[in-house]
């Protein structure tokens, strides 16, 4: 980061400013809130992937699959066509658990694999999950998806389904909880184990850390978070959407959320989600709407901004890797995992 005082102030205080803005924004209208809520969901999914890919250094190319597992578990547990109908909060709980178990199952055979082999196994797992969801159409209703799933609700508070603000603040609160948990885990013994395994697996083993255990825990927690995000997404949309929504390209978008902000960095994930999802669901959509309104799109595929999505994502990734590979918030700016507790100085 530059030493210029303005940049320093921005770098120091943007999270606070962002929090203030998102707290106030819905007061200006539901339209903005509707657009911001998916960003929060993807930020949670990004946090989940960040535990695996950022903290533990295991490249996971199947994050969307865990999102799908969460979404479909939540949907099966809450849609009226099935007899479970357990409601929003128990549904979230079950989704997290199923996601964590699925992550552990994937990690079991993948524990011994290094780098690219692991990446390809997670990619394959993602393919298997979308295929299974597509093919088990007796359960998942195939490409129709399951709907209507349970809408978000706040315990002891009743509000009309059409009111958007309560959902917005609920999701914001859930995101803040997820951020806090990730932050705490990174600053604890677990976080040290993850980063030790990432930096030098063999040295970590020689320090008495079992890398297999460490990776399993990372996968369980990370996948649980991704599934949590998936369930929230399903609830927000009222449907599990369809299996092919959670394909490899979705996984890459989630990976980009983690990479753009800076791997292994909670603040970076939030920034990444804001940029990636914001671009995809706000800027591109609004630009297309605006151009259509002015009659500039016509029948030409080239004149539809959303058709340029992959091109823009792709070029952004290439340029990013070339100019700022460590992400917008590089790891060097991250404070030490364990800070000195105030009482420690007393007993030298």
């Amino acid at each position: 980061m530059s030493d210029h005082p303005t940049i320093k102030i921005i770098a120091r205080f943007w999270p606070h400013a962002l929090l203030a803005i998102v707290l106030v924004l819905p007061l200006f209208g539901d339209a903005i809130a509707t657009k911001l809520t998916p960003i929060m969901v993807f930020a949670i999914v990004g946090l989940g992937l960040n535990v695996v890919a950022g903290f533990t250094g295991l490249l996971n190319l199947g994050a969307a699959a865990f999102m799908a597992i969460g979404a479909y578990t939540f949907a099966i547990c809450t849609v009226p066509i099935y007899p479970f109908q357990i409601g929003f909060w128990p549904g979230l709980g079950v989704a997290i658990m199923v996601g964590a178990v699925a992550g552990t199952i994937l990690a079991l055979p993948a524990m011994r694999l290094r780098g690219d082999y692991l990446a390809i196994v997670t990619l394959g797992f993602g393919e298997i999950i979308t295929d299974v969801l597509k093919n088990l159409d007796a359960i998942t209703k195939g490409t129709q998806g399951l709907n209507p799933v349970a809408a978000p609700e706040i315990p002891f508070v009743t509000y009309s389904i059409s009111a958007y603000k309560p959902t917005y603040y609920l999701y914001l609160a859930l995101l803040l909880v997820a951020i806090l948990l990730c932050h705490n885990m990174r600053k604890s013994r677990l976080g040290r184990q993850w980063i030790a395994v990432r930096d030098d697996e063999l040295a970590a083993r020689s320090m008495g850390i079992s890398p297999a255990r460490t990776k399993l825990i990372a996968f369980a927690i990370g996948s649980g978070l991704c599934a949590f995000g998936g369930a929230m997404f399903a609830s927000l949309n009222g449907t599990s959407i369809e299996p092919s929504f959670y394909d490899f390209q979705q996984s890459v978008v989630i990976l980009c959320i983690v990479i753009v902000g800076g791997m292994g960095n909670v603040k970076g994930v939030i920034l990444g989600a804001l940029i990636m999802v914001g671009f995809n669901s706000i800027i591109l959509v609004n630009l297309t709407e605006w151009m259509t309104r002015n009659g500039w799109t016509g029948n030409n595929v080239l004149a539809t901004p959303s058709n340029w999505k992959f091109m823009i994502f792709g070029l952004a990734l290439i340029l990013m890797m070339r100019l700022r590979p460590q992400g917008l918030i590089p790891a060097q700016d991250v404070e030490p995992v364990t800070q000195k507790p105030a009482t420690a100085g007393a007993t030298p």
Partner: protein
Amino acid sequence: MTTTELIIQLLITGLANGLIIALIALGYTMVYGIIELINFAHGDVMMLGCFLALTIVGLCGGEQLSPWIALPLLFLTVPFFTAGLNWSVEKLAYKPIREAPKLTALVSAIGVSFVFINIGMFWGGLPMDVFGGGGSAASAKSFPDLFGWSNLLGEQSAVLLTPRDVMVAAVTIPLMIGLTFFINRTRMGTAMRAVAQNPTAAKLMGIDVDRVIGLTFIIGGALAGVASVITALYTGSIHFQMGYRNGMDAFTAAVLGGIGNLPGAVLGALLIGLVRAVMEGYVPNGGQWSNTVVFALLILVLVFRPNGILGSRVREKV
């Protein structure tokens, strides 16, 4: 159809599919062997090759074009295009970040792949598409059928062997033999093996590492070009997402055989081709599960042999 005939039929389909996958897999595994990068864009280079082939055939008369003119024409243009494309990808996107951590290059490769997918979408969606499988960008385009479906074993035979099966074997097998010869016998091949083992040492021995890497991408791209022509002719349908599908199969094949290992890639590809043929031709409802089976097989193999079937165990230096 008797059991023997069924087995022969599955073998024909499986091997033809497997050989196509093998051509793409060789490109992956060669690049990985040299710079340890999963070149995600490789499958999409092949996809763009398919669209070029479609454009060329379309400009030259489409269905009426005789295969004896079309084949040489396509094989003289498409591989050059894909080789050049692959080479420029290396120069523009990978070379500047070669010293960076591996993940950086991998993400860059995914970026290139996205750009190509987008180009393919426009290519298929614009008036440039000569056959038009619908006006929208997302739909698949049909490739003109140049070979027909006549059975070379005679019309009464239960086993179907079409000219396109023969074409696949006639093109791919000599190419693979040639590639093996090139890698093992020529000076440039030796240089490639040297760079794969230890780039620094190879550089110190006076090998121009940049040139060798460039050449690897050219060869890989050319193989992908040949594969794109064959795939387009064999399956008769192309789509801007096909790069990912085919690339996926090929990459799985390369990993299955032990990435960086050329015979391993071919072995893995044939295995995947056969598994797919069995799933699609023999198991009821198998077609929709063939992806799942292929990836489950990959995971299974890697559990017991973490470096692939033919891959050698890598010891970490302590």
